[in-house]
C-alpha cells in the first residue's frame, strides 16, 4: 500500500518538474533566464481551469485521446520500479502488457488527431505511428537483455536487485541497453533530435501537431500525460544507471528523484547541442538503434 502511495505521489507530483528542468537547461545554454522550474505546473493548473473549444468536425474519439494519454502512463507507472522502490503491480509477462499499453495511448492519440480532419494533424499521426513501430522492437530487445540477466519476465525483477551483479557480468550489453532506452525515451517523448516540442511548424510536426486542436482541460490532460510518460520511461533509464539501493526508503526516493532530475538535465543538454534530424533520417537512426539493441543481445548469447 505504501508502495502504491509513494509511486503515485512521485509520479503525479514530480513529473511536471521534468519539462521545467529541461527548459531551464536549454535556457542556460542559450543564455536566457528561461521560464521558472514550476512552469509546467502553472500551465497544467491554468489549463484545467479554462474553458474548452472543440472542432465541429470531431466526435468522441477526439475527446478520448487526452483521456487515454493520461490514463496509460499512470497504469504503466504501476508496473515500473521507481529506483529501488518496487513496482506495486507485477506479474510474469507484464513487459508485454507495458509495451501494448503505450500502443493503446498511441492508437487513440493518432485517431484523435485524424478526427479533426486537418492535414497537419494527419501528418503528425502518420509520423507518430510509423516511428513508434520502429521503436517497439528496440524496447523488446532491450527488455530481453534484462530478462536474460535477471532470469525473470516481470519488469519489477528485471529492473530489480539483479542489476547490481549484471553490471559486473555484462557491462557492455547494459551500456548499449542504456543508450537504446535513452533513444526510446527521446523518440517516444518527441524530443530533439526526433521532434521539436517547441514548435508547431510543419517541418517538425509529430507530437505537437497532433494536439493542435485540443484546448482547455483536454490540453492540460495531454501535457500532464506527456510529462508522466517522460517520467515513466525515464525511470527505466535512471534505474539502469543507478541500480543500487541504500536500504532506506527516504534516501532511495531522494536518490531516484535526483536521478530523474539529472536525466532531465541530460535531455536538456542533448536538445541544446543537437539539431533536429531531417525527417527521412529519423527512421534510419531508429533502425540503427534497433540493430544496436540486437547487438547488445548477441553479446549475451555468445
Amino acid at each position, binding site marked *: 500500500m505504501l508502495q502504491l502511495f509513494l509511486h503515485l505521489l512521485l509520479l503525479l507530483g514530480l513529473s511536471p518538474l521534468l519539462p521545467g528542468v529541461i527548459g531551464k537547461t536549454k535556457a542556460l545554454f542559450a543564455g536566457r533566464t528561461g521560464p521558472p522550474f514550476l512552469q509546467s505546473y502553472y500551465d497544467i493548473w491554468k489549463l*484545467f481551469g479554462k474553458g*474548452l*473549444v*472543440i*472542432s*465541429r*468536425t470531431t*466526435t*468522441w474519439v477526439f475527446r478520448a485521446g*487526452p*483521456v*487515454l494519454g493520461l*490514463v496509460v502512463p499512470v*497504469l504503466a507507472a504501476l508496473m515500473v520500479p521507481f529506483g529501488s522502490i518496487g513496482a506495486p*503491480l507485477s*506479474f510474469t*509477462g507484464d*513487459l*508485454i*502488457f507495458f509495451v*501494448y*499499453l503505450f*500502443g*493503446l495511448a498511441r*492508437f487513440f492519440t493518432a*485517431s484523435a*488527431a*485524424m*478526427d*479533426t*480532419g*486537418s492535414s*497537419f494533424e*494527419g*501528418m503528425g*499521426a*502518420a*509520423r507518430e*505511428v*510509423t516511428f513508434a*513501430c*520502429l521503436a*517497439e*522492437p528496440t524496447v*523488446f*530487445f532491450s527488455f*530481453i537483455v534484462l*530478462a536474460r540477466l535477471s*532470469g525473470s*519476465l516481470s519488469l519489477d525483477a528485471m529492473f530489480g536487485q539483479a542489476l547490481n551483479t549484471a553490471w559486473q557480468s555484462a557491462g557492455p550489453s547494459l551500456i548499449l541497453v542504456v543508450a537504446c532506452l535513452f533513444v526510446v525515451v527521446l523518440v517516444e517523448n518527441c524530443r530533439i533530435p526526433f521532434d521539436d516540442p517547441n514548435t508547431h511548424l510543419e517541418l517538425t510536426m509529430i507530437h505537437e501537431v497532433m494536439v493542435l*486542436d485540443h484546448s*482547455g*482541460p*483536454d490540453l*492540460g*490532460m495531454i501535457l500532464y500525460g506527456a510529462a508522466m510518460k517522460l517520467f515513466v520511461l525515464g525511470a527505466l533509464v535512471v534505474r539502469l544507471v543507478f541500480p543500487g539501493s541504500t536500504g532506506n526508503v527516504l534516501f532511495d526516493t531522494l536518490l531516484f528523484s535526483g536521478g530523474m532530475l539529472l536525466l532531465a538535465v541530460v535531455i536538456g543538454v542533448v536538445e541544446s547541442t543537437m539539431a533536429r534530424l531531417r525527417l*527521412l533520417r529519423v527512421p534510419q537512426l531508429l533502425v540503427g538503434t534497433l540493430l544496436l539493441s*540486437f547487438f547488445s543481445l548477441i553479446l549475451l*548469447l*555468445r
Partner: protein
Amino acid sequence: MNFLFAAFLLFGLGALLAVIPWRGGKAVAFFGSGGAILGCLLGLIAAGQGLAAGVAETFFLPLSMPGGAFSLRLDGLSAFFLLPLFVVGLVGALYGSEYMGSGGKTRWSGLHWTWYNLLILSMTLVVTAANGLLFLFAWECMSLTSFFLVITEHNLAEAVEAGWTYLLATHFGAAFLFAFFLSASAFSGSLEFASFQVLGQLSTPVASGLFLLLLVGFGSKAGIFPFHVWLPDAHPAAPSHVSALMSGVMVKTAIYGFLRLFSFLPAAPPWWGGLLMAIGIVGALFGIAMAALQRDVKRSLAYSTVENIGIILLALGFWMQCRATGHYFTAALALAGGLIHLLNHSLFKSLLFMGAGSLMHGSGSRDLNRMGGLMRRMPITGVLIVCGGLAISALPPFNGLIGEWFIYRALLESGTVLSGLAAFSPLVLIGLLALVGGMVIIVMTRIIGIALAGEPRSSAAARAHEAGWRMWSGMAALALLCLVGGLMPVLLLQVAGRAAILLDPAAATLLADNAISPWWLGIMAVLLLGCILAAYGFSRWRQGCTIVPSSATWGCGFAFPSSRMSYSAESYTELPQSAMFCSCLKPSTEDGRTIGFFPEAKSFSFEAPDPVLEHLFKPFFRRAARVCSGFRGLQAGQLHVYLLYIFSVTILLLLWAGQR
C-alpha cells in the same frame, strides 16, 4: 450429437425453403436467415456440450461408396472450431437478413441464402467428419458453396474474376489433399480417421512428404504466404457477412484440417516447426505491409487476415519445434497462444468485415478515400469498428492481446533460457512480431482515421445513414465477446485447453495448471477500464458546462476546412512505405507533378497490386496456358466425339483391370 443433427436438418431446410421463389423478398430472407440462426443456436449447444464433456462422441453409418462412410466425431478439437463457426454464422445470418435486403441486392437474396446455409452445413461437416472421403466431400462442398457466394453479385466482372481465382486456388490445394488421402489410405488400408493412427509408425522422410502435402493443401485454403493470392480478391467481392464467415471461419477450417491430420503423423522433426515459423512470419510481415497500401477497406482487411494466419502459423510452428526439442513448457504456451489467437481472430475479423460492410452500405463505396466523417453519421457502427480495431491491434482491454501475450511469452521464455544459436530465432521473431504489432496500429488507425474521422470525402458519404438494428446488434454481440475475452482471459485459456488435449496431452495438463493462467491480464484490463472511467469523469467535471462551444478545425487561418485538405489513405502510409517497405512492395504511382508555370489539370493514381500474383502466379499461368492451348484440338464441341472419349477410356481401363 443429436443437437448437431437437428442443426443439419435446419440448415438443409433453410437452404431448401430459400430457393423457392416466394412472392416478395421477405419470406426468402425469413426462411434463409431463420434456418441459419436456429441451426447455429442448436449447433452452439452441441459445441458447448462437446467442450464441456471432454469425451468424444462418434456416429457411424456405412455407405455403399468404396472407402466412404458417414462417420462423424465430435471431440474437443472439433468443438473448439465449431464454436466460432456457429457464433459467426449466427451473427452473419442476422446481419445478412438486412444487408441482402437493400441496395438492389434483393434479387440475389434467395440463392444466396441457399448457399449460405449449405456453406455452414458443409463447414460443420468438415470439422466433424471422421472419414477421409466424407471430409473431402464436405471440403469440396465448402469450396463450391463459398465460390457461389463470392460471385453473388455476378453482374460485376471483378466479382466473377475473383471467383475464378478463388476456385482455381482452392482446387490447387484440394489436389494436394487428394494426394494426401490416397497415400494415407494406401498406408493404413482405410479412409477412416480411426485407422490413420498407423501413420504414426511411418519413417520420417515419408512422413515429411505427407506433412508437405498437408501444408500446401490446407495452406492454399488458409491463405498462407505465398498461396494467399485469392484472398484479397475474393473477400472484397463477397457480401460482407460472407466475407466475415470466410475470413473469420472458413480459413480456420483449413487450420483445423491441418491440425487434425497432423496429429496422426509421427513425432515431428524440428524443421517442420521451423518451416511453419518461417512461412508464418514472412506472411505476417507481407500481409500487414500490403494491408497498409490498400485503399479498398475490405482488401485491407483481407490482407490483415493473411497477417493473422501468419501469426497463428508462427505460434503453431513454434509449438511443434519446441515439442521436438523437448521444451514442453514453451510448447504449451505457444500452442495456447496459437489456438487463442485463432479463436480471437475469428471474432474480431468478422466484426471488422461486417463493420466495413456497414460503411459500404452507408457510403456506397469500398474506397477509403470516398468515405470520411462516418463516425458522425453512423455512430454505433463507428464505435463497434473502433472496438474491433483495438482488438485486432492486440490492445488492452480487448481479447486480441491474450493470444499474442501467450505467443510473446513462449518466445520470451525460450529466448531467455536457451543460449547460443538456438536462442537466435525466437529472439529475431520477437522483434519482427513487435514490428508487425506496430504496423497493425498503422493499418487500423488508417482505416479509422480515413473512413470514420474527418470530413466526408464524397457526397454519398455526407448522406450516409446508420445501419438498422439487425446489422449493428450482431456486430455489438461480437464486440461484447471480444471485450469479455479480454476481461476474462482464463475462459479463453480453458476453451483452448480443451482443444489442446487432443493435439498435445502434455501441453494440456500444463495449461490446466494455475501458475500460467493469465488472470493478471484480466485484472489489468479491469483496472484500465476503471482508470479510463475515472479520467473521463475528471474530463467531464473540468469541462463544466454541458454544451461545449465548437468552431472550425484550425487550418492556418483558413476557416472552411474541406475533405480535399485532409490526409488521404495513400498519404497516411507514404512515410512507412518509403521508410520501411522493401522495393518489391512498392506501389505503382502515376505521378501528377506540375512542372510549368501555369496551373493545369493533373491527376494522380496509385495502385498496389499483389507482387506474388504479379511476378509469380500470373507469368506461370500465362506460360501454362500457352502450353495447354495445344490440347485445344481435343475439345471439339461435338457430343459424339466426347462420347467416344469416354468410351475409349472405359475400354482402356477395362483392359488395364484385366491385365492385373
